[in-house]
């Protein structure tokens, strides 16, 4: 699916400026006097200036990537104080680690019209070994007041020279001026992938860097007035919209030497396909062949084999909740320990499917929490699933999730397209992941209305696809008694009995939930009449979309349909006085539909309500429609159906509705 949102905003690119030399420790009084930031008067703090400058140095044969950071923050009020505390994460592995040096920081305060500075003491800078993989440096600025300016500078030294941290242009507070520069040795070509709403084209120039004795390419970004990144609900991953640039080495082109890493998605696929994991390890089937033969023996067709192996892998292996496109354990160890990361599990699945003679291959993806990779990148892909082509049909499989099924993947997988690594046929290309099928939730509610306003009856709910998957996932660790008690509260304090759920432990097919209820407040009694809600306690009461404007797309995860059939049996001696009119409504662009129908018979009322959203992602330009759509549903569901007593010998006829 094309990410239209991204494409449209790319046009908004903007913001050039005249560069201005900013030196550490030299602040201007005007900034110190300021009490608000003109471009965002509600900001608690603003980054007045941020400069990031990365370059390579060599020292006795060792190359390092150095990043100089200079950051100047203005604090306006107490809620901005949190920006006076900093944490720098430093990666490490067994043999090398990143370090911080030359950390200097000053707090400036306005005292009697003058700038007075306080220096951050060395003893108030803390270095901690946070885990096996990284260290942390923490400090908080001294003497921070409302109005303070913090000036911070430090140098990051990294031995991991090909992992250039992404440049970030947008933060939780606005940025007034930002400069980001990187000097890369000529011949080392890095792809620069922009993302987010605010972007400028870099100035690119070449120069000679005497420290490494090489020509370098200097890439510099200058931005002014970048607004704060605002949080919104139902966003897939806010980092997708945070402005910045990602770097990735694509080729090394030196005199007498050329190596390409990844230019197109096909290159990316080939690069990954050529790694040992995909090239060799994947076909080492000795780890499981005996066991698998037993599993396969009773399965005649290829489709049966696929389903059987999928189930077998799910049953046997446990996901350790780690992403990964490369093995963490490898086939052998995974199979021995019965656990592994996403690659261990899904590559095992591919290996087994191949062993069984199916046309199975890995498909690389980037999960929702890992941003959308708009441009070809190896690093941007963090996960692998299995893909089978069988009788012209595409099947995608992810065995990490207890309740996933063939072509019903965990929601995290539906972030973007996939990259097919078909080594046997030498096919490396993009594949379109099938979008989630529409999930359906269907309720049938039968209720008997009593003349005291109480109702009782039964509810039968059927859930399919991702609704079923989510329900199973939520329900699996719940205590049923507790769940029912919560359901009673959720449905307006009804009393539930004989609750049951079918097909809960399965991962195939839908789930059915059934219960009996008694609702003390089923109908409202006023002026001798009974007022019923069309959907009884299943009525939607609150619009999930309350804000006036929307900045980022709304991510529903999957398209869905909610369907309700409510059958009321009227109390003796009552007749239908009025019912709301039927309604059919569509959101432009076939985004969604809403249907409302009422059927009246002598002693019964049947209400049919459907609403569906046809796309998993709704773009901001359609937000108003979406909000209005929900508003209409709520308004319609609030309109009562009115029952009145049949007066002696003069039974009122049905009026008002059809």
């Amino acid at each position, binding site marked *: 699916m094309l990410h239209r949102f991204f494409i449209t905003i790319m046009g908004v690119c903007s913001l050039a400026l005249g560069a201005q030399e900013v030196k550490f420790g030299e602040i201007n009084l005007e900034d110190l006097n300021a009490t608000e930031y003109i471009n965002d008067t509600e900001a608690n703090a603003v980054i007045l200036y941020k400069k990031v400058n990365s370059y390579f140095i060599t020292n006795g044969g060792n190359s390092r990537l150095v990043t100089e950071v200079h950051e100047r923050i203005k604090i306006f009020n107490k809620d901005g104080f949190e920006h006076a*505390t900093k944490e720098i994460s430093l990666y490490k592995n067994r043999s090398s680690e990143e370090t911080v040096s030359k950390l200097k920081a000053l707090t400036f305060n306005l005292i009697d019209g003058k700038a007075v500075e306080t220096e951050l003491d060395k003893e108030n800078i803390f270095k*901690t*070994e*946070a885990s096996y993989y990284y260290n942390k440096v923490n400090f908080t600025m001294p003497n921070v007041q409302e109005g303070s300016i913090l000036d911070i500078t430090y140098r990051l030294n990294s031995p991991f020279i090909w992992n250039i941290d992404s440049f970030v242009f947008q933060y939780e507070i606005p940025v007034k001026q930002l400069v980001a520069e990187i000097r890369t040795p000529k011949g080392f070509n890095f792809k620069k992938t922009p993302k987010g709403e605010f972007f400028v084209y870099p100035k690119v120039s070449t120069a000679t860097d005497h420290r490494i004795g090489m020509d370098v390419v200097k890439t510099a970004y200058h931005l002014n007035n970048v607004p704060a990144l605002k949080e919104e609900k139902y966003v897939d991953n806010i980092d997708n919209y945070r402005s910045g640039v990602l770097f990735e080495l694509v080729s090394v082109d030196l005199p007498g030497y050329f190596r390409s890493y990844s230019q197109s998605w096909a290159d990316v696929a080939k690069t990954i396909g050529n790694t040992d994991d995909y090239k060799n390890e994947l076909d080492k089937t000795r780890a499981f062949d005996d066991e698998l033969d037993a599993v396969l023996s009773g399965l005649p067709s290829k489709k049966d084999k696929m389903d059987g192996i999928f189930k077998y892998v799910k049953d046997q292996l446990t996901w350790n909740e780690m992403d990964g496109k490369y093995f963490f354990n490898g086939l052998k160890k995974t199979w021995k320990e019965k656990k592994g990361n996403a690659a261990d599990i899904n590559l095992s699945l591919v290996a087994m499917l191949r062993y069984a003679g199916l046309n199975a291959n890995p498909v690389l993806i980037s999960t929702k929490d890992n941003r959308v990779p708009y441009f070809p990148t190896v690093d941007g892909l963090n996960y692998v699933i299995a893909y089978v082509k069988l009788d012209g049909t595409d099947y995608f499989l992810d065995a990490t999730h207890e309740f996933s099924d063939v072509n019903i993947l965990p929601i995290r997988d539906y972030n973007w397209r996939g990259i097919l690594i078909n080594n046997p046929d030498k096919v490396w290309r993009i594949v379109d992941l099938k979008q989630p099928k529409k999930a359906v939730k269907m309720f049938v509610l039968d209720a008997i209305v009593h003349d005291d306003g109480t109702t009782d009856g039964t509810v039968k709910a059927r859930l399919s696809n991702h609704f079923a998957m989510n329900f199973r996932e939520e329900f699996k660790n719940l*205590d049923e008694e507790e769940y029912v*008690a919560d359901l009673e509260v959720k449905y307006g304090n009804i009393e539930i009995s004989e609750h049951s759920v079918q097909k809960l432990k399965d991962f195939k097919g839908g789930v059915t939930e059934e219960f009996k209820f008694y609702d003390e407040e089923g109908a409202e009694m006023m002026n001798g009449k009974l007022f019923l809600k069309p959907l009884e306690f299943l009525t939607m009461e609150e619009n999930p979309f309350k804000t006036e404007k929307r900045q980022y797309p709304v991510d529903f995860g999957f398209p869905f349909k909610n369907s309700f059939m409510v059958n009321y049996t009227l109390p003796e001696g009552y007749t239908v006085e009025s019912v*709301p009119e039927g309604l059919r409504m569509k959101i432009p662009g076939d985004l969604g539909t809403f249907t409302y129908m009422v059927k009246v018979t002598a002693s019964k009322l049947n209400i049919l309500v459907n609403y569906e959203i046809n796309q998993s992602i709704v773009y901001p330009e359609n937000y108003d429609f979406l909000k209005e759509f929900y*508003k209409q549903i*709520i308004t319609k569901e*609030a309109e009562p159906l009115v029952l009145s007593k049949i007066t002696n010998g003069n039974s009122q006829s049905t009026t008002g509705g059809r």
Partner: protein
Amino acid sequence: MRFFLYFLICPLFVVAQSQIYPVSKIPDSLLNDADIVVREDFMDVEVFALDKMKITVHRVVTILNEDGDSYGTLSVGYDNDLKIRSVSAKILNEQGEEIDQIKKNDFKDFSAVDGMSLYTDNRVLAYQYLIQDYPVTIVFDYEIDTKDTGVIPSWVFMPGYNASVEQSRYTVKYPNNKLRPTIVERNLGSFILKKRETEGSFAYQAQGLKAMKYESLSPSFAKTAPQLMVHMPNFNYKSVPGSIYTWKDVGLWMNGLLEGQDELSPETISTAKQLVTNAKDTLEKAKLIHAYVQENTRYISVQVGIGGLQPISAIEVDRVKYGDCKGLTNYTMALLKAVGVNSYYVVVQAGRDKVDFYDDFADLGQGNHVILTIPYNGKYYWIDCTSQVHPFGFIGDFTDDRQVLVVKPEGGELMKTEAYLNEDNLQLTNAEVKLFKDGSMDAQLNIKTTGIQYDRRFFIENETKENIERFYKNYWGSIGSLRVEKFAFQNQKDSVLFQETLQVSALDYAAKTNDQIIFAPNVFNNSGYVPKRYRHRKLPFEVQRGYLDEDNYLISYPEGYNVENLPQPVHIQSNFGEYQMTYEATQGGLRLKRKFLLKQGYYPPEEYENYRKFRRQVAKTDNTKIIITTDQ
């Protein structure tokens, strides 16, 4: 006396033998409501000297389902004075057969960051076992040597809700009477327990403790759990020897940590004096100093030195203008002292849950926070120096109404912090509401809050417009298409009173049918909260803080509309509180008066259904609807 026989034969360190823990051996009664079963939980403490103690732990836990997964994380904390001598674990399958072995090298070393602190000295060795099949049994053993006898571990016989216990044992050995620990038993009453004391040792054992299930509104597990509180009257802590028998002694020991920390520079002293030159009395001086601290410092946690018990010096806080609760409290005390105002350092267990310090058990282990108290004219004013926004003398629900340790020069003393009772926590809402023919409405309203209700509201004053709008849209979430047109706040800190003046509108407030409009006249206080139903309530429940809400709404109908029948007034009087709702017809509309008093209280499980009924009646009445019709 089988238990002690077993004791004598068995060495303190039990060597785990895998095949003795098959899941089939767990009695059925311990499987009910349990996510985990503690098969064996043994702690043996051996005190050798004032600064030498060995602790041996052997814990066997069977995890039955994913809700017990947190027990798959094994960890042991350590620091400079506490060394881990050995640590290992074994993983057993359902039959009790060993499937994995975890050695000391497999454990990872972490900083014990709490997510709050900028820095802490504490570290932890941890291993997380990824569970593949349930049930699984984890045998966890470790031994530690420590110099800190000041924090001898206490013992809880049950680890939490949804956990049952087969065997739990706690023993202490000590060399002489000077090093004899004090043990106070809590909530042991109904549990099967054996205990024995000899010269030089204590031993407790419990068996067959059935799992308890959490029920809403029940008091915290720690309050009801069977436990031993253990303390060494003569001890060593972070190389500081001490002797504590009473709360007075704890105070004296704390004084040792505070001594000399209150020094300030002459400049700061003169600044402080200057601040209060025009102050009429001590209280005003205190208020001025408090305001100065609020203006000039912020809260940052740095846990170093004497086990995180000693505050950073006042001079240092004065210089960097930040500190943790101890540092800021000590700093405020120093400033107050400089202007001749007497104040005390107070140790408290903070949190919404009210936890008292025990009268009968004095030790260093209670409390997690430090506040300040200023005595004046027979009254104590309580101040949390970590808050830059709370009014003077107002501590809110973080440290209210609980027994705390006040550190006075002559020693410690237990006192109760200020309580905000029932009517103190007031919310008074006055509103004028205009209903329109199309079902929309406009309203002007004024909300006054005091006490704990103030504490829950006043923060919005400093929020952005966007967040303020979001707050009200969520707060009145069921009002269709609510818009906040205008808002203004008045925070009267002196009287701890917060006022919100609002203008709101809602396009879809009322429902319509033909010529009728149906709406709930209780526009702004209709939460509908009813506690959930328990078929068999087992635990007591509590209303930790009461409150009083009063609502007066004047609602005008659209022109030409009238009401046929107003609902009957409702008055409910109950042990739990009182509720009143009246409707009165006015010219072209109605006046609604609502009063709801909920009382603070602690009730036995049998009362739960009555409480639910009470809340249900309230919710139902709150949601009463009326119909207006037009005569045309």
